Protein backbone atom coordinates (compact mmCIF):
# COMPACT_ATOMS: atom_id res chain seq x y z
CA UNK A 1 0.00 0.00 0.00
CA UNK A 2 1.47 3.30 -1.08
CA UNK A 3 0.96 5.87 1.63
CA UNK A 4 -0.07 9.38 0.71
CA UNK A 5 -0.12 12.32 3.06
CA UNK A 6 -3.67 13.50 3.37
CA UNK A 7 -4.63 16.95 2.22
CA UNK A 8 -8.09 16.94 3.71
CA UNK A 9 -8.93 18.33 7.11
CA UNK A 10 -9.43 15.84 9.92
CA UNK A 11 -10.49 15.88 13.54
CA UNK A 12 -8.66 15.06 16.77
CA UNK A 13 -10.93 12.06 17.17
CA UNK A 14 -9.92 10.82 13.71
CA UNK A 15 -6.25 11.33 14.47
CA UNK A 16 -6.77 9.40 17.69
CA UNK A 17 -8.36 6.48 15.84
CA UNK A 18 -5.49 6.50 13.36
CA UNK A 19 -2.78 6.74 16.05
CA UNK A 20 -4.36 3.87 17.97
CA UNK A 21 -4.69 1.73 14.85
CA UNK A 22 -1.01 2.23 14.06
CA UNK A 23 -0.02 0.53 17.32
CA UNK A 24 -1.55 -2.73 16.11
CA UNK A 25 0.51 -5.14 14.05
CA UNK A 26 -0.31 -7.74 11.47
CA UNK A 27 0.51 -10.70 13.73
CA UNK A 28 -1.39 -9.39 16.75
CA UNK A 29 -4.37 -10.96 18.40
CA UNK A 30 -6.36 -8.04 19.70
CA UNK A 31 -9.24 -8.07 22.15
CA UNK A 32 -11.39 -4.96 21.82
CA UNK A 33 -14.39 -3.39 23.47
CA UNK A 34 -16.97 -1.24 21.69
CA UNK A 35 -16.44 2.39 20.72
CA UNK A 36 -13.16 3.93 19.64
CA UNK A 37 -11.09 0.80 20.40
CA UNK A 38 -13.24 -1.16 17.98
CA UNK A 39 -13.09 1.57 15.34
CA UNK A 40 -9.29 1.67 15.63
CA UNK A 41 -8.91 -2.09 15.46
CA UNK A 42 -11.11 -2.40 12.40
CA UNK A 43 -9.25 0.51 10.82
CA UNK A 44 -5.96 -1.34 11.35
CA UNK A 45 -7.43 -4.49 9.84
CA UNK A 46 -8.71 -2.60 6.80
CA UNK A 47 -5.35 -0.90 6.24
CA UNK A 48 -1.93 -2.12 7.43
CA UNK A 49 -2.80 -5.19 9.52
CA UNK A 50 -5.02 -7.31 7.28
CA UNK A 51 -4.08 -10.57 8.98
CA UNK A 52 -4.61 -9.29 12.52
CA UNK A 53 -7.02 -11.32 14.64
CA UNK A 54 -9.78 -9.32 16.31
CA UNK A 55 -11.65 -10.85 19.24
CA UNK A 56 -14.66 -9.35 20.96
CA UNK A 57 -15.68 -10.58 24.36
CA UNK A 58 -19.23 -11.82 23.73
CA UNK A 59 -18.81 -14.08 20.67
CA UNK A 60 -16.99 -12.45 17.76
CA UNK A 61 -13.85 -14.48 17.19
CA UNK A 62 -11.43 -13.44 14.47
CA UNK A 63 -13.90 -11.04 12.96
CA UNK A 64 -13.63 -8.74 9.98
CA UNK A 65 -17.01 -7.03 9.80
CA UNK A 66 -18.56 -5.48 6.71
CA UNK A 67 -20.43 -2.98 8.88
CA UNK A 68 -19.43 -1.44 12.19
CA UNK A 69 -20.84 -3.45 15.09
CA UNK A 70 -22.93 -1.59 17.68
CA UNK A 71 -21.55 -3.79 20.41
CA UNK A 72 -19.48 -6.90 21.01
CA UNK A 73 -22.54 -9.14 20.53
CA UNK A 74 -23.84 -7.51 17.33
CA UNK A 75 -24.62 -9.90 14.45
CA UNK A 76 -22.43 -7.55 12.37
CA UNK A 77 -19.46 -8.75 14.40
CA UNK A 78 -20.43 -12.40 14.00
CA UNK A 79 -20.97 -12.36 10.23
CA UNK A 80 -18.41 -14.54 8.39
CA UNK A 81 -16.73 -15.72 11.59
CA UNK A 82 -16.11 -19.47 11.45
CA UNK A 83 -16.27 -20.24 15.14
CA UNK A 84 -18.92 -18.95 17.54
CA UNK A 85 -17.74 -19.14 21.14
CA UNK A 86 -19.19 -17.66 24.32
CA UNK A 87 -17.68 -15.19 26.80
CA UNK A 88 -16.44 -18.24 28.71
CA UNK A 89 -14.23 -19.19 25.77
CA UNK A 90 -13.11 -15.71 24.71
CA UNK A 91 -12.47 -14.35 28.19
CA UNK A 92 -12.26 -17.35 30.52
CA UNK A 93 -10.12 -19.33 28.10
CA UNK A 94 -8.35 -17.45 25.29
CA UNK A 95 -7.67 -14.28 27.29
CA UNK A 96 -6.93 -15.98 30.60
CA UNK A 97 -4.76 -18.59 28.90
CA UNK A 98 -2.55 -15.82 27.52
CA UNK A 99 -3.58 -15.94 23.86
CA UNK A 100 -4.30 -12.20 23.55
CA UNK A 101 -1.43 -9.90 22.58
CA UNK A 102 -3.14 -6.55 22.82
CA UNK A 103 -6.09 -5.40 24.89
CA UNK A 104 -7.81 -2.23 23.76
CA UNK A 105 -9.76 -0.18 26.28
CA UNK A 106 -11.54 3.10 26.73
CA UNK A 107 -12.16 4.76 30.11
CA UNK A 108 -13.19 7.83 32.07
CA UNK A 109 -10.04 8.48 34.13
CA UNK A 110 -6.44 7.41 33.88
CA UNK A 111 -3.54 8.08 36.26
CA UNK A 112 0.25 8.25 35.87
CA UNK A 113 0.60 4.48 36.29
CA UNK A 114 -2.04 3.66 33.73
CA UNK A 115 -4.69 2.72 36.27
CA UNK A 116 -7.98 3.11 34.49
CA UNK A 117 -11.38 3.96 35.90
CA UNK A 118 -14.46 3.08 33.89
CA UNK A 119 -16.77 2.46 36.85
CA UNK A 120 -17.79 5.72 38.56
CA UNK A 121 -16.88 9.33 39.24
CA UNK A 122 -16.66 10.24 42.92
CA UNK A 123 -16.79 7.93 45.91
CA UNK A 124 -17.80 4.44 44.82
CA UNK A 125 -20.13 4.11 47.78
CA UNK A 126 -21.89 7.40 46.98
CA UNK A 127 -21.08 8.14 43.33
CA UNK A 128 -21.44 11.50 41.65
CA UNK A 129 -21.82 9.76 38.35
CA UNK A 130 -22.19 6.06 38.04
CA UNK A 131 -21.19 4.56 34.69
CA UNK A 132 -22.62 1.52 32.93
CA UNK A 133 -20.16 -0.91 34.45
CA UNK A 134 -16.78 -1.83 33.18
CA UNK A 135 -17.55 -4.97 31.15
CA UNK A 136 -14.35 -6.91 30.53
CA UNK A 137 -11.96 -3.97 31.04
CA UNK A 138 -10.38 -5.35 34.21
CA UNK A 139 -9.92 -8.80 32.70
CA UNK A 140 -8.31 -7.41 29.57
CA UNK A 141 -6.00 -5.05 31.49
CA UNK A 142 -5.01 -7.95 33.78
CA UNK A 143 -4.38 -10.60 31.18
CA UNK A 144 -3.56 -9.21 27.73
CA UNK A 145 0.10 -9.09 26.68
CA UNK A 146 -0.15 -5.32 26.65
CA UNK A 147 -2.93 -2.78 26.99
CA UNK A 148 -3.71 0.24 24.85
CA UNK A 149 -6.00 2.87 26.34
CA UNK A 150 -8.00 5.45 24.37
CA UNK A 151 -9.29 8.46 26.26
CA UNK A 152 -10.09 12.15 25.65
CA UNK A 153 -7.27 14.38 26.87
CA UNK A 154 -8.78 16.51 29.62
CA UNK A 155 -7.55 17.48 33.11
CA UNK A 156 -10.53 15.77 34.72
CA UNK A 157 -9.59 12.55 32.94
CA UNK A 158 -5.79 12.54 33.33
CA UNK A 159 -5.81 12.63 37.12
CA UNK A 160 -3.34 12.26 39.96
CA UNK A 161 -5.42 9.45 41.42
CA UNK A 162 -8.36 7.74 39.76
CA UNK A 163 -11.54 7.60 41.84
CA UNK A 164 -11.69 3.82 41.43
CA UNK A 165 -9.19 1.40 39.89
CA UNK A 166 -11.24 -0.63 37.45
CA UNK A 167 -8.25 -1.86 35.44
CA UNK A 168 -4.84 -2.17 37.08
CA UNK A 169 -1.92 -0.20 35.67
CA UNK A 170 1.76 -0.52 36.57
CA UNK A 171 1.37 0.39 40.24
CA UNK A 172 -2.03 -0.71 41.36
CA UNK A 173 -4.17 -1.50 44.41
CA UNK A 174 -2.87 -3.72 47.23
CA UNK A 175 -5.27 -6.56 48.12
CA UNK A 176 -6.28 -4.85 51.38
CA UNK A 177 -7.31 -1.78 49.41
CA UNK A 178 -5.01 0.68 51.17
CA UNK A 179 -1.92 1.33 49.04
CA UNK A 180 -0.28 0.82 45.67
CA UNK A 181 2.04 -1.99 44.58
CA UNK A 182 3.80 -2.88 41.33
CA UNK A 183 1.63 -5.21 39.25
CA UNK A 184 4.44 -7.78 38.91
CA UNK A 185 4.41 -8.24 42.69
CA UNK A 186 0.79 -9.36 42.38
CA UNK A 187 1.78 -11.86 39.69
CA UNK A 188 0.14 -9.81 36.93
CA UNK A 189 1.78 -9.96 33.51
CA UNK A 190 1.13 -7.49 30.70
CA UNK A 191 0.43 -3.89 31.62
CA UNK A 192 -0.42 -0.56 29.97
CA UNK A 193 1.62 -0.01 26.84
CA UNK A 194 0.19 3.22 25.48
CA UNK A 195 -2.50 5.79 26.11
CA UNK A 196 -3.85 7.28 22.92
CA UNK A 197 -5.56 10.57 23.65
CA UNK A 198 -7.13 13.38 21.65
CA UNK A 199 -3.76 15.18 21.88
CA UNK A 200 -1.13 12.51 21.46
CA UNK A 201 0.26 9.16 22.45
CA UNK A 202 1.66 8.47 25.93
CA UNK A 203 3.80 5.52 26.94
CA UNK A 204 5.23 4.12 30.17
CA UNK A 205 8.72 3.95 31.64
CA UNK A 206 9.58 0.27 31.99
CA UNK A 207 11.16 0.56 35.44
CA UNK A 208 9.13 3.22 37.27
CA UNK A 209 5.90 2.36 35.48
CA UNK A 210 5.32 6.11 35.03
CA UNK A 211 3.62 7.65 32.04
CA UNK A 212 5.38 10.07 29.68
CA UNK A 213 4.44 11.85 26.50
CA UNK A 214 5.68 9.85 23.55
CA UNK A 215 4.26 11.87 20.67
CA UNK A 216 1.65 14.53 19.96
CA UNK A 217 -0.54 15.69 17.10
CA UNK A 218 1.56 18.65 15.96
CA UNK A 219 -0.22 18.75 12.61
CA UNK A 220 -3.43 19.57 14.53
CA UNK A 221 -1.68 22.39 16.36
CA UNK A 222 -1.13 20.49 19.59
CA UNK A 223 1.96 21.52 21.59
CA UNK A 224 3.77 19.87 24.50
CA UNK A 225 2.59 22.70 26.72
CA UNK A 226 -1.05 22.17 25.81
CA UNK A 227 -0.72 18.51 26.66
CA UNK A 228 0.73 19.38 30.07
CA UNK A 229 -2.07 21.82 30.74
CA UNK A 230 -4.66 19.20 29.93
CA UNK A 231 -3.01 16.70 32.26
CA UNK A 232 -3.81 16.67 36.00
CA UNK A 233 -0.34 15.60 37.07
CA UNK A 234 3.24 16.55 36.18
CA UNK A 235 4.03 14.97 32.81
CA UNK A 236 7.45 14.27 31.31
CA UNK A 237 7.34 15.59 27.74
CA UNK A 238 11.09 15.53 27.15
CA UNK A 239 11.01 12.48 24.88
CA UNK A 240 8.01 13.57 22.83
CA UNK A 241 8.07 13.91 19.06
CA UNK A 242 5.32 14.83 16.61
CA UNK A 243 3.07 12.11 15.19
CA UNK A 244 2.68 12.13 11.47
CA UNK A 245 -0.80 13.06 10.26
CA UNK A 246 -3.20 10.43 8.87
CA UNK A 247 -2.46 8.95 5.50
CA UNK A 248 -5.12 9.35 2.87
CA UNK A 249 -5.77 5.61 2.93
CA UNK A 250 -6.33 5.71 6.65
CA UNK A 251 -8.85 8.53 6.57
CA UNK A 252 -10.64 7.10 3.59
CA UNK A 253 -10.91 3.70 5.19
CA UNK A 254 -12.19 5.29 8.38
CA UNK A 255 -14.78 7.44 6.65
CA UNK A 256 -15.99 5.14 3.93
CA UNK A 257 -15.40 1.63 5.21
CA UNK A 258 -15.06 1.50 9.00
CA UNK A 259 -17.68 4.00 10.17
CA UNK A 260 -19.33 5.61 7.16
CA UNK A 261 -22.41 6.55 9.17
CA UNK A 262 -20.32 8.25 11.84
CA UNK A 263 -21.89 6.15 14.57
CA UNK A 264 -18.85 6.46 16.81
CA UNK A 265 -16.97 9.13 14.91
CA UNK A 266 -19.92 11.55 14.81
CA UNK A 267 -18.64 13.32 11.70
Amino acid at each position, binding site marked *: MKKQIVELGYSNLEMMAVAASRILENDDTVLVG*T*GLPLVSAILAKKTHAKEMTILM*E*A*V*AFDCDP*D*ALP*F*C*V*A*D*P*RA*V*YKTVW*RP*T*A*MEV*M*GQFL*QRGKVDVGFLGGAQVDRYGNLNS*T*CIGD*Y*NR*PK*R*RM*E*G*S*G*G*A*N*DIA*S*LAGKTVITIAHERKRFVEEVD*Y*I*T*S*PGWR*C*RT*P*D*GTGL*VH*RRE*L*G*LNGGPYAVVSTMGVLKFDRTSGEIYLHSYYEDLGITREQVCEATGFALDTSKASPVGPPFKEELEALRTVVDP*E*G*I*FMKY
Partner: protein
Amino acid sequence: MVKKNKVIALKDIPGFVREGDRLWTGGWTVVRKPMAMVWELIRSGKKKLHLVANPGGPEFDLMAGCDCISKTETNYIGHEVFGHPYNWRRKLDEPDGEEFYHDDWTVKTGALRIVAGSMGIPFIPSKSLLGSDIINPEYDGFKELRGKDKKVPRRKVKLMDDPFWDGDTVVLLPALNPDVCLIHAQKVGEDGTVLITGGTFLDYYAALASEVTIVSAEKIVSREEIEKTAEMNKIPGMVVDAILEVPYGAHPTALHNYYDNDPWWFRDYLEASKDVQKMREWSKKWVHGPKDYREYLELLGKKRLKKLCADGQKGYNPEMKRRLDRLEEVPSE
Protein backbone atom coordinates in the same frame (compact mmCIF):
# COMPACT_ATOMS: atom_id res chain seq x y z
CA MET B 1 -39.61 -38.57 21.83
CA VAL B 2 -41.22 -35.59 23.57
CA LYS B 3 -41.47 -36.53 27.19
CA LYS B 4 -43.81 -33.93 28.53
CA ASN B 5 -45.66 -30.88 27.41
CA LYS B 6 -43.60 -27.85 28.38
CA VAL B 7 -45.57 -25.21 26.51
CA ILE B 8 -46.82 -22.28 28.55
CA ALA B 9 -48.24 -18.83 27.72
CA LEU B 10 -46.59 -15.46 28.28
CA LYS B 11 -49.10 -14.65 31.04
CA ASP B 12 -47.80 -17.68 33.01
CA ILE B 13 -44.33 -16.16 33.38
CA PRO B 14 -44.96 -14.15 36.58
CA GLY B 15 -46.00 -17.40 38.32
CA PHE B 16 -42.43 -18.69 38.04
CA VAL B 17 -40.81 -15.70 39.75
CA ARG B 18 -40.92 -14.79 43.45
CA GLU B 19 -39.87 -11.59 45.19
CA GLY B 20 -36.17 -11.70 46.04
CA ASP B 21 -35.37 -14.20 43.30
CA ARG B 22 -32.04 -13.98 41.55
CA LEU B 23 -33.06 -13.52 37.94
CA TRP B 24 -30.83 -14.32 34.96
CA THR B 25 -31.84 -12.77 31.67
CA GLY B 26 -30.11 -14.27 28.65
CA GLY B 27 -28.57 -12.49 25.68
CA TRP B 28 -25.98 -9.71 25.79
CA THR B 29 -26.69 -5.96 26.35
CA VAL B 30 -28.72 -5.02 23.25
CA VAL B 31 -28.81 -8.48 21.64
CA ARG B 32 -31.28 -11.36 22.14
CA LYS B 33 -32.65 -10.21 25.47
CA PRO B 34 -35.85 -11.95 26.71
CA MET B 35 -37.78 -8.71 26.47
CA ALA B 36 -41.31 -10.12 26.14
CA MET B 37 -40.94 -12.21 29.29
CA VAL B 38 -39.46 -9.30 31.22
CA TRP B 39 -42.28 -7.08 29.90
CA GLU B 40 -44.82 -9.50 31.35
CA LEU B 41 -42.95 -9.66 34.67
CA ILE B 42 -43.01 -5.87 34.97
CA ARG B 43 -46.74 -5.77 34.14
CA SER B 44 -47.40 -8.22 36.96
CA GLY B 45 -45.94 -5.76 39.46
CA LYS B 46 -42.99 -7.85 40.67
CA LYS B 47 -40.81 -6.14 43.26
CA LYS B 48 -37.41 -6.63 44.85
CA LEU B 49 -35.90 -8.75 42.09
CA HIS B 50 -32.18 -9.47 42.28
CA LEU B 51 -30.74 -9.20 38.78
CA VAL B 52 -27.67 -11.30 38.04
CA ALA B 53 -27.25 -11.51 34.24
CA ASN B 54 -23.77 -10.77 32.85
CA PRO B 55 -24.22 -8.29 31.26
CA GLY B 56 -27.60 -6.56 31.50
CA GLY B 57 -29.21 -4.43 28.79
CA PRO B 58 -32.47 -2.55 28.40
CA GLU B 59 -34.29 -5.23 30.39
CA PHE B 60 -32.29 -4.24 33.50
CA ASP B 61 -32.85 -0.55 33.00
CA LEU B 62 -36.54 -1.07 32.31
CA MET B 63 -36.97 -3.13 35.48
CA ALA B 64 -35.08 -0.42 37.36
CA GLY B 65 -37.33 2.27 35.89
CA CYS B 66 -40.46 0.33 36.82
CA ASP B 67 -39.22 -0.24 40.41
CA CYS B 68 -39.03 -4.04 40.17
CA ILE B 69 -35.54 -4.44 41.57
CA SER B 70 -33.57 -4.08 44.78
CA LYS B 71 -30.25 -5.74 43.88
CA THR B 72 -28.04 -5.95 40.81
CA GLU B 73 -24.74 -7.78 40.43
CA THR B 74 -23.17 -7.71 37.01
CA ASN B 75 -20.37 -6.31 34.88
CA TYR B 76 -22.41 -3.89 32.76
CA ILE B 77 -25.90 -2.49 32.45
CA GLY B 78 -26.65 -0.39 29.46
CA HIS B 79 -27.53 0.26 25.87
CA GLU B 80 -24.06 0.23 24.32
CA VAL B 81 -23.62 2.99 21.76
CA PHE B 82 -27.32 3.95 22.00
CA GLY B 83 -26.95 5.56 25.39
CA HIS B 84 -26.83 5.39 29.16
CA PRO B 85 -28.97 3.38 31.58
CA TYR B 86 -30.60 6.39 33.17
CA ASN B 87 -33.13 4.54 35.30
CA TRP B 88 -30.59 2.21 36.83
CA ARG B 89 -28.05 4.98 37.26
CA ARG B 90 -30.55 7.01 39.26
CA LYS B 91 -30.72 4.16 41.79
CA LEU B 92 -27.08 4.83 42.62
CA ASP B 93 -26.58 8.52 41.84
CA GLU B 94 -29.80 9.73 43.43
CA PRO B 95 -30.88 7.13 45.98
CA ASP B 96 -34.55 7.54 46.91
CA GLY B 97 -34.37 5.82 50.29
CA GLU B 98 -35.58 2.48 48.95
CA GLU B 99 -33.27 -0.46 49.68
CA PHE B 100 -30.89 -0.89 46.76
CA TYR B 101 -27.57 -2.72 46.41
CA HIS B 102 -25.24 -3.11 43.46
CA ASP B 103 -22.11 -5.24 43.25
CA ASP B 104 -19.59 -4.97 40.39
CA TRP B 105 -18.09 -7.88 38.49
CA THR B 106 -16.39 -8.20 35.11
CA VAL B 107 -17.16 -10.07 31.90
CA LYS B 108 -14.75 -12.85 32.72
CA THR B 109 -15.49 -13.18 36.41
CA GLY B 110 -19.23 -12.99 35.76
CA ALA B 111 -18.78 -15.71 33.15
CA LEU B 112 -16.71 -17.87 35.49
CA ARG B 113 -19.26 -17.49 38.29
CA ILE B 114 -22.12 -18.80 36.17
CA VAL B 115 -19.86 -21.52 34.73
CA ALA B 116 -19.06 -22.62 38.31
CA GLY B 117 -22.79 -22.60 39.02
CA SER B 118 -23.40 -24.81 35.99
CA MET B 119 -20.72 -27.20 37.26
CA GLY B 120 -22.20 -27.56 40.73
CA ILE B 121 -18.96 -26.41 42.34
CA PRO B 122 -19.04 -23.68 45.02
CA PHE B 123 -16.22 -21.55 43.58
CA ILE B 124 -13.70 -21.27 40.74
CA PRO B 125 -10.25 -19.66 40.47
CA SER B 126 -9.62 -16.58 38.33
CA LYS B 127 -6.53 -14.65 37.34
CA SER B 128 -8.02 -11.16 37.05
CA LEU B 129 -9.30 -8.67 39.67
CA LEU B 130 -5.94 -8.46 41.48
CA GLY B 131 -4.72 -4.88 41.82
CA SER B 132 -8.17 -3.40 41.29
CA ASP B 133 -10.82 -1.81 43.47
CA ILE B 134 -13.33 -4.44 42.35
CA ILE B 135 -12.00 -6.58 45.20
CA ASN B 136 -11.29 -3.66 47.53
CA PRO B 137 -13.22 -4.67 50.69
CA GLU B 138 -14.25 -1.03 51.20
CA TYR B 139 -16.02 -1.09 47.84
CA ASP B 140 -17.87 -4.38 48.19
CA GLY B 141 -21.38 -3.37 47.16
CA PHE B 142 -22.97 -6.30 48.98
CA LYS B 143 -20.95 -6.02 52.20
CA GLU B 144 -24.03 -5.33 54.32
CA LEU B 145 -25.73 -8.44 52.98
CA ARG B 146 -22.92 -10.95 53.53
CA GLY B 147 -23.59 -13.52 56.20
CA LYS B 148 -27.25 -12.39 56.31
CA ASP B 149 -28.76 -12.88 52.86
CA LYS B 150 -28.64 -16.56 51.91
CA LYS B 151 -28.61 -15.67 48.22
CA VAL B 152 -25.38 -13.73 48.64
CA PRO B 153 -22.05 -15.51 49.28
CA ARG B 154 -20.41 -14.96 52.67
CA ARG B 155 -17.56 -13.05 51.04
CA LYS B 156 -16.98 -11.50 47.63
CA VAL B 157 -13.71 -13.29 46.77
CA LYS B 158 -10.91 -15.18 48.47
CA LEU B 159 -7.24 -14.94 47.50
CA MET B 160 -5.27 -18.17 47.49
CA ASP B 161 -1.80 -19.28 46.49
CA ASP B 162 -1.60 -22.04 43.89
CA PRO B 163 -0.56 -25.20 45.78
CA PHE B 164 0.26 -27.23 42.65
CA TRP B 165 2.51 -25.33 40.27
CA ASP B 166 4.19 -21.92 40.55
CA GLY B 167 2.57 -20.63 43.74
CA ASP B 168 0.98 -17.59 42.06
CA THR B 169 -1.96 -15.96 43.76
CA VAL B 170 -5.38 -16.62 42.26
CA VAL B 171 -8.72 -15.10 43.14
CA LEU B 172 -11.45 -17.58 44.08
CA LEU B 173 -14.87 -16.48 42.87
CA PRO B 174 -18.15 -17.71 44.34
CA ALA B 175 -20.44 -19.70 42.04
CA LEU B 176 -23.64 -18.07 40.83
CA ASN B 177 -26.86 -20.11 40.79
CA PRO B 178 -29.83 -17.97 39.77
CA ASP B 179 -33.33 -18.90 40.88
CA VAL B 180 -34.87 -18.22 37.49
CA CYS B 181 -33.35 -18.00 34.01
CA LEU B 182 -35.22 -16.41 31.11
CA ILE B 183 -33.84 -16.91 27.59
CA HIS B 184 -35.11 -15.87 24.19
CA ALA B 185 -33.96 -18.01 21.26
CA GLN B 186 -34.50 -18.35 17.56
CA LYS B 187 -36.07 -21.82 17.87
CA VAL B 188 -36.98 -24.26 20.57
CA GLY B 189 -37.95 -27.88 19.98
CA GLU B 190 -41.15 -29.15 21.55
CA ASP B 191 -38.86 -31.22 23.81
CA GLY B 192 -37.14 -28.03 25.05
CA THR B 193 -33.96 -28.33 22.98
CA VAL B 194 -32.79 -24.80 22.17
CA LEU B 195 -31.32 -23.63 18.88
CA ILE B 196 -29.48 -20.33 19.14
CA THR B 197 -27.34 -18.85 16.37
CA GLY B 198 -25.04 -15.85 16.28
CA GLY B 199 -23.86 -16.18 19.86
CA THR B 200 -25.11 -18.23 22.81
CA PHE B 201 -23.32 -15.87 25.19
CA LEU B 202 -23.62 -17.40 28.69
CA ASP B 203 -27.11 -18.79 28.29
CA TYR B 204 -26.23 -22.49 28.23
CA TYR B 205 -24.39 -22.13 31.51
CA ALA B 206 -27.18 -20.07 33.05
CA ALA B 207 -29.84 -22.58 31.98
CA LEU B 208 -27.99 -25.32 33.81
CA ALA B 209 -26.98 -23.21 36.81
CA SER B 210 -30.49 -21.92 37.49
CA GLU B 211 -33.23 -23.64 39.45
CA VAL B 212 -35.85 -22.89 36.80
CA THR B 213 -35.23 -22.10 33.13
CA ILE B 214 -37.80 -20.78 30.69
CA VAL B 215 -37.17 -20.33 26.99
CA SER B 216 -39.26 -18.20 24.66
CA ALA B 217 -38.56 -18.52 20.95
CA GLU B 218 -39.59 -17.07 17.66
CA LYS B 219 -40.86 -20.53 16.82
CA ILE B 220 -41.55 -23.80 18.60
CA VAL B 221 -40.56 -26.61 16.23
CA SER B 222 -41.06 -30.37 16.16
CA ARG B 223 -38.61 -32.90 17.52
CA GLU B 224 -37.85 -33.91 13.90
CA GLU B 225 -37.02 -30.34 13.01
CA ILE B 226 -34.69 -29.85 15.97
CA GLU B 227 -32.95 -33.18 15.14
CA LYS B 228 -31.77 -31.65 11.88
CA THR B 229 -29.61 -29.16 13.77
CA ALA B 230 -28.26 -31.71 16.28
CA GLU B 231 -24.66 -30.55 15.90
CA MET B 232 -25.53 -26.90 16.51
CA ASN B 233 -28.25 -26.99 19.18
CA LYS B 234 -27.06 -25.13 22.21
CA ILE B 235 -29.13 -26.12 25.26
CA PRO B 236 -30.62 -29.57 25.95
CA GLY B 237 -34.28 -29.90 26.85
CA MET B 238 -33.43 -31.50 30.18
CA VAL B 239 -32.71 -28.13 31.78
CA VAL B 240 -35.58 -26.29 30.12
CA ASP B 241 -38.65 -26.31 32.32
CA ALA B 242 -41.06 -24.37 30.13
CA ILE B 243 -41.19 -23.04 26.57
CA LEU B 244 -43.31 -20.53 24.74
CA GLU B 245 -43.58 -19.12 21.25
CA VAL B 246 -43.27 -15.33 21.15
CA PRO B 247 -42.48 -13.77 17.76
CA TYR B 248 -40.43 -10.60 18.23
CA GLY B 249 -39.86 -11.73 21.81
CA ALA B 250 -36.48 -9.96 21.94
CA HIS B 251 -37.67 -6.59 20.60
CA PRO B 252 -36.12 -3.95 20.75
CA THR B 253 -32.87 -5.94 20.99
CA ALA B 254 -31.41 -7.68 17.94
CA LEU B 255 -31.96 -11.35 17.10
CA HIS B 256 -29.40 -12.87 14.73
CA ASN B 257 -31.02 -13.82 11.41
CA TYR B 258 -34.42 -12.50 12.52
CA TYR B 259 -34.39 -8.78 13.29
CA ASP B 260 -32.09 -5.93 14.11
CA ASN B 261 -32.09 -3.45 16.99
CA ASP B 262 -35.03 -1.04 16.88
CA PRO B 263 -33.30 2.37 16.84
CA TRP B 264 -36.58 4.26 17.28
CA TRP B 265 -37.28 2.38 20.48
CA PHE B 266 -33.85 3.20 21.86
CA ARG B 267 -34.10 6.84 20.87
CA ASP B 268 -37.51 7.30 22.47
CA TYR B 269 -36.78 5.19 25.53
CA LEU B 270 -33.51 6.95 26.25
CA GLU B 271 -35.17 10.33 25.97
CA ALA B 272 -37.96 9.27 28.33
CA SER B 273 -35.74 7.50 30.83
CA LYS B 274 -33.79 10.65 31.62
CA ASP B 275 -36.73 11.87 33.64
CA VAL B 276 -38.85 10.04 36.23
CA GLN B 277 -42.14 11.55 35.12
CA LYS B 278 -41.51 10.98 31.41
CA MET B 279 -40.48 7.43 32.19
CA ARG B 280 -43.83 6.86 33.91
CA GLU B 281 -45.65 8.07 30.84
CA TRP B 282 -43.51 5.93 28.60
CA SER B 283 -44.15 2.77 30.58
CA LYS B 284 -47.85 3.56 30.85
CA LYS B 285 -48.00 3.60 27.06
CA TRP B 286 -45.60 0.84 26.14
CA VAL B 287 -45.66 -1.58 29.09
CA HIS B 288 -49.02 -1.24 30.79
CA GLY B 289 -51.07 0.05 27.87
CA PRO B 290 -51.32 -2.98 25.56
CA LYS B 291 -53.58 -5.78 26.76
CA ASP B 292 -51.09 -8.41 25.58
CA TYR B 293 -47.85 -8.76 23.62
CA ARG B 294 -49.70 -9.04 20.35
CA GLU B 295 -51.22 -5.63 21.02
CA TYR B 296 -47.76 -4.32 21.93
CA LEU B 297 -46.52 -5.42 18.53
CA GLU B 298 -49.55 -3.81 16.88
CA LEU B 299 -48.69 -0.59 18.69
CA LEU B 300 -45.22 -0.77 17.11
CA GLY B 301 -46.83 -1.45 13.78
CA LYS B 302 -46.10 -3.89 10.96
CA LYS B 303 -44.19 -1.38 8.91
CA ARG B 304 -41.76 -0.65 11.72
CA LEU B 305 -41.24 -4.33 12.49
CA LYS B 306 -40.66 -5.01 8.82
CA LYS B 307 -37.96 -2.33 8.74
CA LEU B 308 -36.07 -4.32 11.39
CA CYS B 309 -35.98 -7.57 9.39
CA ALA B 310 -32.56 -9.17 9.19
CA ASP B 311 -30.90 -10.36 6.01
CA GLY B 312 -30.94 -14.17 6.23
CA GLN B 313 -27.41 -14.37 4.88
CA LYS B 314 -25.79 -11.68 7.00
CA GLY B 315 -27.83 -12.05 10.15
CA TYR B 316 -28.55 -8.31 10.45
CA ASN B 317 -30.21 -5.60 8.38
CA PRO B 318 -27.51 -4.03 6.18
CA GLU B 319 -29.89 -1.21 5.15
CA MET B 320 -30.53 -0.06 8.70
CA LYS B 321 -29.51 3.52 9.51
CA ARG B 322 -28.27 3.56 13.05
CA ARG B 323 -27.37 7.06 14.20
CA LEU B 324 -30.01 8.02 16.74
CA ASP B 325 -29.53 11.75 16.05
CA ARG B 326 -30.25 11.24 12.35
CA LEU B 327 -33.00 8.64 12.30
CA GLU B 328 -35.69 8.86 9.69
CA GLU B 329 -39.27 9.17 10.93
CA VAL B 330 -40.74 6.22 12.81
CA PRO B 331 -42.30 4.06 10.12
CA SER B 332 -46.04 4.12 10.55
CA GLU B 333 -48.87 2.38 8.77
